[in-house]
């Protein structure tokens, strides 16, 4: 049973170690933090939870000096700070462990720990002192198994994380921010990390712990703060609350938007794609059927394997095991080219990086696939270009000669969709189809997705926005830790999805 930590936050009554007051931050006119306040005591593990895009990471980057807030104050040990550079936050005692590590793979552990602060002796870097101190810090954390001389490239992800923590400790941090530290870890590694976090708190550090995994939040934290849409919702002692209350606080929102009607029974056709036991480094035992005429939604937290699944189906990061058939043909694509020829298309989450050649015209982008892959009807696609662009309702002032970098996010996304429609796919995969798209274009893309399903395409849609996923999907598969954690019917409530997504990997529907 998860044991709630019974100890109250130490230092009760005394001034908190850290106070962030009324912090606001906008990017390009979009407010991502509204008057958020937060405090942290020495020795406390304070969990920060919220859906994707709730503002957790932005708040922490403000604290770490990576973003300068528009307003609000940061007080550390009674001193007010205005950080404008990460170095200032470091000097004040704030350490942050990002999801992506900032380690030099080809340098040793000790060299990484002391990077930028190498001790010297007679003008020479005192390698011995550096390695000794690193060894001591590692031993204090119970990680004597890691050699200070080991190269970071030879360490597991969990060990690399330990190195990041040691790096923070070596610079005398008082406040340690951990941004989803267990996301890349296996279950047993996560447990070791939990023990480590407890030891650090016992030593008097204040720890801000961002996590999507509610079970560990309840095991570890003294208090929980919920953020939603950039606002502070609540801060409660962990002992006084439960998972359902926190989940409700995280999602509590109305399905206000309009979504096109779902498929009626009988509108879905035969199976366009089947997968049995699909797996690779990040995915395990995935069984999946995509039917023509149906929109299948994939829910899951960041790092749960949603994007990996789409990329595996598309051959970009192929499956290494399992059987797959597309349109009745047995085929496990080993490259995007094979997938495209089999009739699979992927609208990636990174529109600018992977979806478009930004400096090329709408025409060049829309015809990219048909030009590149043999067996595609390039000539007819070129003739049908105008019809294609009409079909996706593209609004470009310069017509098909316009460079796509000058289009709005919504219109850029329509060009990506047009590109795939030109290749006449049978299976269309969407990864975050409306990310960074304005409300009007969002509705247009939703309608378009539904129309494509009605025309007989099998559609798979991944979205971090649960309302969108629920509004669009005819059924919802929930992923967790690289596995399918369960299937929910159309219109399932957000709470059910979050429960499957945040639940332990060993529950769920192993039998299904």
């Amino acid at each position, binding site marked *: 049973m998860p044991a709630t930590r019974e100890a109250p936050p130490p230092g009760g009554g005394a001034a908190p170690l850290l106070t962030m007051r009324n912090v606001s931050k906008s990017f390009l006119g979009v407010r991502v933090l509204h008057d958020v306040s937060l405090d942290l005591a020495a020795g406390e593990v304070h969990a920060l939870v919220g859906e994707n895009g709730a503002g957790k990471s932005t708040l922490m980057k403000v604290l770490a000096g990576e973003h300068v807030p528009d307003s609000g104050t940061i007080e550390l040990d009674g001193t007010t700070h205005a950080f404008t550079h990460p170095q200032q936050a470091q000097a004040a005692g704030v350490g942050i462990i990002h999801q992506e590590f900032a380690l030099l793979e*080809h340098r040793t552990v000790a*060299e990484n720990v002391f990077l*930028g602060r190498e001790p010297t002796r007679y*003008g*020479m870097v005192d390698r011995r002192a550096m390695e000794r101190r690193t060894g001591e810090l590692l031993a204090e954390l119970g990680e004597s198994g890691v*050699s200070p001389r080991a190269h970071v490239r030879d360490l597991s992800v969990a060990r690399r994380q330990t190195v990041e923590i040691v790096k923070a400790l070596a610079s005398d941090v008082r406040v340690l921010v951990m941004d989803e530290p267990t996301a890349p870890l296996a279950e047993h590694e996560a447990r070791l990390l939990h023990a480590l976090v407890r030891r650090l708190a016992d030593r008097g550090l204040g720890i801000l712990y961002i996590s999507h995994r509610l079970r560990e939040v309840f095991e570890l934290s003294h208090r929980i703060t919920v953020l939603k849409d950039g606002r502070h919702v609540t801060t409660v002692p962990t002992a006084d609350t439960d998972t359902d209350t926190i989940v409700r606080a995280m999602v509590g929102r109305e399905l206000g938007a309009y979504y096109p009607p779902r498929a009626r029974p009988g509108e879905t056709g035969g199976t366009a794609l089947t997968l049995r036991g699909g797996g690779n480094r990040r995915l395990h035992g995935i069984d999946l059927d995509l039917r023509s005429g149906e929109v299948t939604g994939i829910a899951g937290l960041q790092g749960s394997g949603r994007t990996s699944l789409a990329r595996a189906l598309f051959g970009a990061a192929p499956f290494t095991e399992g059987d797959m058939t597309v349109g009745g043909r047995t085929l496990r694509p080993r490259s995007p080219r094979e997938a495209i020829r089999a009739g699979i298309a992927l609208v990636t989450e990174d529109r600018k990086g992977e979806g478009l050649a930004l400096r090329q015209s709408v025409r060049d982008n829309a015809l990219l696939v048909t030009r590149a892959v043999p067996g595609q009807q390039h000539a007819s696609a070129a003739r049908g270009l105008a019809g294609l662009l009409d079909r996706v309702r593209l609004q470009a002032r310069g017509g098909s000669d316009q460079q796509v970098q000058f289009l709005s996010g919504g219109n850029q996304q329509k060009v990506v969709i047009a590109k795939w429609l030109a290749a006449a796919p049978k299976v269309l995969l969407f990864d975050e189809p409306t990310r960074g798209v304005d409300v009007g274009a969002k509705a247009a893309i939703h309608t378009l997705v539904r129309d494509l399903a009605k025309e007989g395409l099998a559609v798979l849609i991944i979205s971090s926005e649960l309302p969108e996923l629920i509004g669009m999907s005819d059924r919802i598969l929930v992923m967790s830790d690289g596995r399918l954690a369960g299937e929910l019917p159309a219109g399932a409530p957000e709470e059910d999805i979050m429960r499957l997504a945040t639940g332990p990997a*060993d529950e769920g529907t192993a039998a299904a």
Partner: protein
Amino acid sequence: MTPTALAPAVAQPGPKPRRVKLTDPAVGVWLAAAVVIVLGWLIVTLDGGSFFARANITTILSNCVALGLVAVGQSAVILTGSLDLSVAYLISLGTLVAAETMQDGSVVTGVLAVLALSVAVGLANGLIVTGLKVNAFIATLGTAFILRGWIEDNYTGPAGQVPASFRHLGYDRIGPVPVSVFLLAAVAAAVWFLTRRTRLGHHMYATGGDEHAARLSGVRTRRTVVVAHVICSLCVGAAALFLASRLGAGAPWAGTEARYDLESIAAVVLGGTALAGGRGGVAGTLGGVLILAVLDSVFNQLSVDPFFKNVVRGVVIIAAVALYARRGRKTA
């Protein structure tokens, strides 16, 4: 809830033992150099020549010096994640400045003038790369064109003359070892010390390895790149002084005829330094230089077709880098 029932059966792997040093490119390239020497000796001996003749050893070592000095400097910039294509023209200009200054003044003023020129060019390269944020390839190609323009506008052939005393550097030897080898050894040792033993060196590796991570750790990455460029140019200045001593005069073709720009990059890469930076070092580079010099010597003794010689050089460099790439993928 019985999570233990599904606990992973695989035990967590312990820390890996320290890598066998043979896979370190710096060690590998010296082994390769030894193999090349043995093969060269066999081939030359079978051909009826004598590989280990005193004159041949002196030639090989002497040939190592100029390329070695440039390649050591090139290692410093490449480690830091930059590149210097202006080295060939800096050598040419350096020999001219040395010879002309020494003709009118003393050896000391000549040396100082060349070093001052080197610092200026290195600073310019570094500041263009970091301040104007011009890609190093283009930035140093640009300075190369500027230096070339200056040379072609002012010189049509050899100019100046170095005093006889200065020519000892190029021609004296102790046993079979030219004294200039000690210049290379001193410069290489200095750069090795800087890169491996000082904070600056650690920051060079960090900047080349991951500039963003280095900056987040408080490293002044721009300054590091500028200093690396100055170090490189100073090494190139030393090469220019050596060549001026060899030639007895300054020559507009001193650096370009032997293609020190691309040759030095080839030697650095052959020595196991990653072209992207952050990995490698001076020791490997010297091994790379030795391999290239021995190959040259063997081909000269056999007087083979220059086409064949260049094919072998090309194959060796490509094979070396392909080998490093394989290794890098396995450890990634």
